[in-house]
């Protein structure tokens, strides 16, 4: 739920010396993205996307760096970042398996697909494997109702997924890492 408040104020922020928002990223944003919007805050979503793409998630320190870069209060950045489901404010696995659970997928037995993932990865929905390789989630509609049940493996959409197929995809991702 987008609107559940998080106790961010009391949390200890882990810090590291190396910035999440690198100079290179700042340069690219200043050159390509900032001129597109009338306010600096307009570039917030693209900036969050960029940081997440680079690191897999958005650390609290990164939120502060972004705030600094866009002349915003850290709270404003957190406000937006925590609203959108796609931004990970906690580390996630290297690979994200997202099974669609909305109506068309549910009536076309998405539950079997999720179950196959759970068994293969030995984790529940919303959890990450101990080796940090996989995170399993269920999402609301991913816009592939014609190919239900559907799942996103990282950024690739797979339609008409069977339990066998999703296990194959998980194994492929694991094998690919091992290379």
């Amino acid at each position, binding site marked *: *739920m*987008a*609107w559940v408040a998080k106790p961010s104020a009391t949390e200890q922020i882990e810090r590291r010396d190396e910035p999440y928002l690198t100079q290179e990223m700042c340069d690219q944003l200043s050159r390509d993205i900032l001129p*597109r*919007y*009338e*306010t600096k*805050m*307009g*570039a*917030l*979503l*693209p900036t*969050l*996307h960029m940081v997440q793409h680079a690191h897999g998630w958005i650390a609290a320190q990164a939120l502060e760096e972004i705030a600094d870069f*866009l002349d915003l209060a850290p709270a404003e950045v957190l*406000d*937006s970042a925590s*609203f*959108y*489901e*796609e*931004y990970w404010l906690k580390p996630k696995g290297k690979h994200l398996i997202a099974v669609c*659970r*909305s*109506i*068309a997928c*549910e*009536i*076309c037995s998405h539950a079997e697909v999720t179950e196959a993932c759970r068994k293969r990865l030995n984790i529940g929905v919303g959890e990450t494997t101990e080796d940090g390789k996989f995170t399993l989630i269920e*999402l*609301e*509609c*991913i*816009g*592939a*109702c*014609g*190919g*239900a049940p559907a799942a*996103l493996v990282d*950024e*690739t*959409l797979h339609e008409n997924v069977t339990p066998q197929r999703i296990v194959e995809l998980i194994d492929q991702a694991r094998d690919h890492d091992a290379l």
Partner: protein
Amino acid sequence: MAYTPKTNFPILTKRIPTRPWGDERQRHIVRYDEYVETGGYVGLRKALSMAPGDVTEVVKEAQLRGRGGAGFPAGLKWTFLPKIEDVNSPGPRYLAVNADESEPGTFKDRLLMDFDPHLMLEGIAICCYACRIDKAYIYIRGEYHHQAQVVEEALLEAYHHGVFGGAGLMNGSDTATGAPWKVECYLHRGAGAYICGEETALLESLEGKRGWPRVKPPFPAVQGLFGKPTIINNVETLAHLPSIIENGVEWFTAQGTESTIGGPPSYGTKLMGLSGHVNRPGVYECDLGIPLRTFVEEYGAGMRGGKKFKGAIAGGISTGVLGPDQYEAELDFDIGRKYNVLGLGTACPTIFDEETDMVAVARNISRFFKHESCGQCTPCREGSGWLFQLLSRIESGEARTKDLDLALEIATGMGAMPGTTICGLADGNNWAIRTIMNKYWGEFEARVQPTFVPVTMSVGAAANG
């Protein structure tokens, strides 16, 4: 009465092979060169030879109704923009293209962005010319990774060939002031929030804020993105523009259907996405007014496993369901008034066969709305949560008869528009659950235990004493 389609050629799917005109296996991304070879950007060139006001007039006369769900006439929406001559200091004007397709059941715009992105870009350019817009933002949903990439590449091509940008076809085209004028078009990726498909929430999100719908008025046409006049149109609405400008009003109004109940007409073809228990789900282009039965049986190759039709979501879950006796419903903008659903929505029906558990369907839908409620208005935030809890209880068989009434009361009362909530999300939740409960009441009743009402009364000697 047998249904005969009025339009025997593809329009939006001209370059995307789709049944019955093409083989879906031949689908591929249409690049700029192929797009131009197959008659692309002719509509834009024609538009540029006309006065901007005349382009708007054509779209208005064609009565092109918005394809994003509400069915509001696009041309009329454009006329709400302040006239350029009336503005003392003409600041930027914006177009926000709504590609945040996120309602369960809806996957039609994806087809255009997957294979023929230039059709959308041409529509954007025409709209920008007609409304004298300076910047267009394509707000694409975060989950559409591949589509974002396709559109981004198409945008580069469009810039390269002068559709947008400083060397644009439209660069320096006549403006009232004669000042230089060019159109920029950018892609902006959302991040997984259904509510950002609501037009004012979309603007908030473009501004980098959380996607909370704004109180209207002021309407976006007057005070929209960054406080400037803004038009918001759906991808498919814009994709209709090139062919309307090229072929004229009469050509367009010959497609689709007149209203049978004296309302505004439903002209044109529509991309309709079919999902659920059918043999051949997918996106098809049909005339508005096609009966649901024809759509399922001819395009969708009938019900899966030869089972019986039990019901259908009219078009995106917020519109509510069509019951077993409404299989003949015509898919046009009259559907709401004629068949007691919210409206046509995006015309993407999800079909249920006879074995579907409608209580589970209601629970799934209420979970979606609970999950996607932005939390700004209390009736929606709280009501959607309660409704989900109640429906889960009913599904698990632990509920009592009075829970049915309570669920219906919440479904009817929460966010009844207009007035109790800012946007229509709660209203969508309300319609979906209310129509399912009313049309399948027996199924809900069979799942609950009768309410035991203890009555105390004194009898015999005690009563007399």
